[in-house]
């Protein structure tokens, strides 16, 4: 009888706290995932092979440029000579800022160039041209 009792106790694994652990995991993942903040404009991105990932979403500001030359930051439309103020503020609050430029593939270079100038004036120099992945040809 004594032996039987001992074996009964040892064969049990405490599973009552299992849901708590898993709920914790769940909540952790829910909190850490950053959802898309802004819907941006309708664009089709160009494709490139040699691309790099942006390190952190928290240090990224997006600029959308649509086919017709509309420029949007945080879902607000801006004229091309007004971006510097927004970007300057962003840059001031986050020195690690990288600007991700999501421009349509049919945009004219004059728009891109004016954004370059604005970003230079705002001292937001780290720029990333957002592209899709193209399968390497080599």
């Amino acid at each position, binding site marked *: 009888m004594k032996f039987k009792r001992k074996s009964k106790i040892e064969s049990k694994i405490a*599973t*009552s706290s*299992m*849901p708590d652990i*898993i*709920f914790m*995991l*769940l909540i952790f*993942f*829910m909190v850490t*995932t950053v959802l*898309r903040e802004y819907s941006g404009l309708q664009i089709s991105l*160009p*494709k*490139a*092979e*040699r*691309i*790099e*990932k*942006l390190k952190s*979403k928290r240090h*990224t500001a997006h600029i959308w440029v649509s086919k017709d030359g509309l420029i949007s930051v945080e879902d607000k439309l801006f004229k091309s000579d007004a971006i510097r103020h927004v970007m300057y503020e962003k840059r001031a609050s986050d020195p690690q800022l*990288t600007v*991700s*430029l999501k*421009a*349509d*593939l*049919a*945009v*004219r*270079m*004059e728009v*891109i*160039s004016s954004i*370059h*100038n604005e*970003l*230079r*004036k705002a*001292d937001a*120099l*780290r*720029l*990333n*041209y*957002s*592209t*899709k*992945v193209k399968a390497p*040809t080599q």
Partner: protein
Amino acid sequence: MALRERKTRVGAIPESGMADIAFLLLIFFLVTTTIDTDKGIGIILPAEGQEIEINKKNILNLLISSSGNVLLGGEAIAINQIDDRVKEEIRKNDKLIISVKAHEKAQYDVYIAVLDQLKKAKATRISIAETE
């Protein structure tokens, strides 16, 4: 005997299934969240008022026309050949700076294709000139 057994069953909530439910939820969220990391071609713009004089020998001009044609050092070149040509030029002169100049009506995807080629050629010194 039958009555007694029924009495002992009352009062316990089955919590063994709880972990499974929570796991299921966890897996559901893991699968449905699409982590769309931003990818693209990174460059660093020159700071305002930071123009430096560069020896003309060390500059390779790359022009993009409004119709999408590319001139490399004065010669027309197909976009997919820029890679090899630039690699060669850099081997000859490792201080080479590639100056990309686009016409203001040039299309953005040509520009990206050109930058992609330059990245492929491992050109680190890229200068983006203003449009003309």
